[in-house]
């Protein structure tokens, strides 16, 4: 067993910390949690949209990292490997949630009160900050509506700022396909939020 202190562990690269965890230094786990908790939270929040579920998923990701620590090989960056685990968990949870939403939102045709109410939005936004806020809100909404293949690459690229190579590895998709999906996802998002975007912004 290594005699590395927490301070020593903090100096190591992610991959070296993981190696320590593999060799039985359990304190290395705390270092990984400290380094990744916020990044994973920001990533998984786009799937859960609430902090409680998100925290559960982040915890589960870390526990899976620990449980499968021996299957990690240094040829991959630790971050890439962790995002792969997190993405798989998120996809499973997202599918479950979608099934539930489909059931709960189904309109009852026999009930005259159970129908969609359209509220016309006639407010013209003059204030730039408010306009930007609306755009961001619409973007979050539009992101939820993207199909899964587009959502995952756009979140990894535009929110997590990962490289195309890393995204290709995490999603197990050719890099050309990743780029094409990201480009198409951005067009779809722009079309979805188009009504909120002033023409001069383009």
């Amino acid at each position, binding site marked *: 067993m290594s005699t590395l202190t927490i301070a020593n562990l903090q100096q190591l690269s992610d991959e070296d910390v993981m190696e320590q965890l593999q060799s039985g230094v*359990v304190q290395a*786990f*705390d270092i990984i*949690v*400290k380094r990744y*908790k*916020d990044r994973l*939270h*920001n990533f998984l*929040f786009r799937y859960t949209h609430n*902090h409680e579920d*998100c*925290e559960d998923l*982040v*915890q589960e990701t*870390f*526990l899976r990292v*620990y*449980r499968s620590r021996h299957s990690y090989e240094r040829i991959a960056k630790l971050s890439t490997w962790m995002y792969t685990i997190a993405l798989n968990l998120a996809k499973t949870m997202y599918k479950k949630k979608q099934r539930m939403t489909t059931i709960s939102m189904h309109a009852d045709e026999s009930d005259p009160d159970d129908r969609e109410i359209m509220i016309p939005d006639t407010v013209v936004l003059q204030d730039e900050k408010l306009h*930007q806020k609306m*755009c*961001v809100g619409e*973007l*979050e909404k539009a992101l939820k509506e993207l199909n899964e293949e587009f959502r995952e690459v756009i979140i990894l*690229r*535009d*929110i997590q700022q990962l490289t*195309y190579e890393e995204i290709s590895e995490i999603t197990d998709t050719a890099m*050309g396909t990743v*780029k*094409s999906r*990201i*480009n*198409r996802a*951005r*067009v779809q*998002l*722009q*079309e979805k939020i188009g009504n909120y*975007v002033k023409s001069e*912004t*383009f």
Partner: protein
Amino acid sequence: MFIYQTQDEIIDDFIAGFSDCTLSLPEQKAFMEVMDCNPAINKHARAGKFISRLFKQLPIYRARDGFEEKMAASFALELKKDSRVAETTA
């Protein structure tokens, strides 16, 4: 007229580069000429740049206070489980 196929890797590279602002100046100049000639490429490239900029304004969600303590408690249980398994297999 140049037609943009959605699976054209070179064009996709350029659109991605334009959106991420990673093209060199000559590349950007040349690509903007292509954009001027092809509305489909233009649409993709401008949407790409706009959306990637807009994403930078999204709020960043961080783990809440107390997360590390909760995580440590779950990890302690995991270690306990591990040692129980090790004891039974010993």
